[in-house]
């Protein structure tokens, strides 16, 4: 995987919003005709509804009992394969360890679905004898499974990735 630029970003600049502190943020968002308390609630709802995925929370966590995310990086660099074709994600699998590089700037839902997709497909490829439930999945099948996981369990987290892997039959040997 080649990267053309040199700027690394550990997370999408748009994916983390600061939590409101005291009245400061509420005051900024207050409209002339609304009560301060209502404005504060609106700010909290807006922040809560903006789904933030903290990629560092996945590091060194066990998935499916046997897999491990050893590295995960959101990068602002252009990702390319060996032939110079633009890529949006790469998952490297060595043994039971996964190293993910994902292009930053994806909306949070897109990032979440990408994580579900990469992990399910990586677990499948990493397994010498994967569960039957994934043996017939093609690319569209993995994408569909990832979207279904997003719909069923919400944003990707260690717990939700484990739910998905368990659902598809990945068990600790």
């Amino acid at each position, binding site marked *: 995987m080649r990267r053309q630029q040199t700027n690394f970003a550990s997370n999408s600049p748009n994916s983390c919003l600061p939590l409101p502190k005291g009245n400061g943020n509420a005051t900024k968002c207050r409209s002339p005709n609304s009560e301060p308390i209502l404005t504060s609630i609106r700010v909290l709802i807006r922040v809560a509804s903006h789904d933030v995925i903290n990629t560092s929370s996945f590091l060194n966590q066990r998935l499916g009992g046997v897999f491990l995310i050893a590295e995960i990086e959101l990068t602002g660099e252009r990702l390319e394969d060996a032939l110079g074709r633009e890529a949006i994600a790469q998952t490297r699998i060595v043994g039971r360890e996964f190293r993910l590089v994902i292009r930053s700037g994806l909306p949070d839902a897109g990032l979440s679905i990408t994580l579900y997709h990469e992990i399910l497909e990586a677990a499948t490829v990493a397994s010498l004898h994967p569960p039957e439930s994934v043996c017939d999945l*093609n*690319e569209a099948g993995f994408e569909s499974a990832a979207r279904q996981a997003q719909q069923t369990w919400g944003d990707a987290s260690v717990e939700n990735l484990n739910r998905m892997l368990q659902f598809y039959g990945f068990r600790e040997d």
Partner: protein
Amino acid sequence: MVDYDKIQFDLVKLLNGERILRLTDPQSGLSLEKKLKASEAVVRQKDRLLQVFEAALARAELIGA
């Protein structure tokens, strides 16, 4: 037969939605990649690529590459 746990697998998702699977033997540096067919199961394509990779690796070792 190569040690499965020592092979490096790279799954690359291209911008156009296509998927590349690359197998690398870190010791010899031998690498083999294939664009996966969208309509066919990933596991079957991986298994076939793995067979070709093992054969190539055995041949490389035979000729001392």
